[in-house]
């Protein structure tokens, strides 16, 4: 995350301005490999390190929660320039201000938990 600059606020901004391939390259490569790995595991019924079958749980069906939740997430992602993974990477890298973002994220999670039953899913 850090070395490839995926944890950089600037790279996220650049991504949403479509002014470089960089972030698309990172996500795209990870995705391409992920698709292949997943297909191989399924096709050859590859077992886990513990010898058990690997289960792929399908995501719950729906549209509203994904679109509404997604947009809210995206707004925050662009504003803070970090999603959950990079938040912790930046913490390790010493950018203490990210703690404010992390606290916000924890509170946002908590808020969701409280409001959940009142939200359209």
């Amino acid at each position, binding site marked *: 995350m*850090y*070395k*490839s*600059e995926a*944890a*950089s*606020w*600037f790279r996220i901004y*650049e991504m*949403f301005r479509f*002014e470089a391939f960089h972030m698309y*390259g*990172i996500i795209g*490569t990870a*995705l391409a*490999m992920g698709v292949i790995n*997943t297909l191989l595991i399924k096709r050859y019924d590859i077992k886990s*390190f513990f010898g058990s079958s690997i*289960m792929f*749980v399908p*995501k*719950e069906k729906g549209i509203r929660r*994904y*679109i509404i*939740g*997604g*947009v*809210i*997430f*995206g*707004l925050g*992602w*662009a*504003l*803070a*320039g970090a*999603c*959950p*993974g990079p938040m*912790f*990477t930046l913490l*390790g*890298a*010493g*950018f203490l*201000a*990210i703690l*404010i*973002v992390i*606290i*916000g*994220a*924890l509170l*946002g*999670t*908590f*808020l*969701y*938990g409280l409001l959940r039953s009142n*939200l359209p899913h």
Partner: protein
Amino acid sequence: MEFINQPWPWYLSGVAIALIMLILQLSGKKFGMSSNLRTICSICGAGNQAQFFRFDWKAQKWNLIVVLGAIIGGFIAAHFMTNSSAVLINSNTIAHLKTLGFESAGSAYVPSELFGANAFADPKTLLILFIGGLFVGFGARYAGGCTSGHAISGLSNLQVPSLIAVIGFFIGGLIMTHLIFPIIF
């Protein structure tokens, strides 16, 4: 040695991320960072306030270790593997950011205007960082995942809900970057 100190090309990161997901899959787990936020809330006692946080968080300890790994990785990368941390984004982007007031564009890893000393002192900066985090946390749980859970794991499994989520991520990001930034900065 030089290679270690330079910024890494995108394909290396992409491969590394996919490898992590593979290791997790082969361990019978999933790759998803935002569920850790829920786990941390539960550890802090959120279960007393909402049903959502009453679950066996101890079964999620492995995911907290992934978080620890991310923290350690950031530490090692920043302190031992970096000569100059300036992120050289597109010069047009740099120019545009400067018109918004981000003088540190092109010469820092993250904007010092947001992550520097101002962060804890200036109310506007504090609010921006906090609200950014708030939306990420809320949105990720509402959508049931963030970039790792949906854009990478979900799409790898060809899940349509994940595609919808990712489209949502992008709509949100574009609105913020193109419509809201010019207003707040």
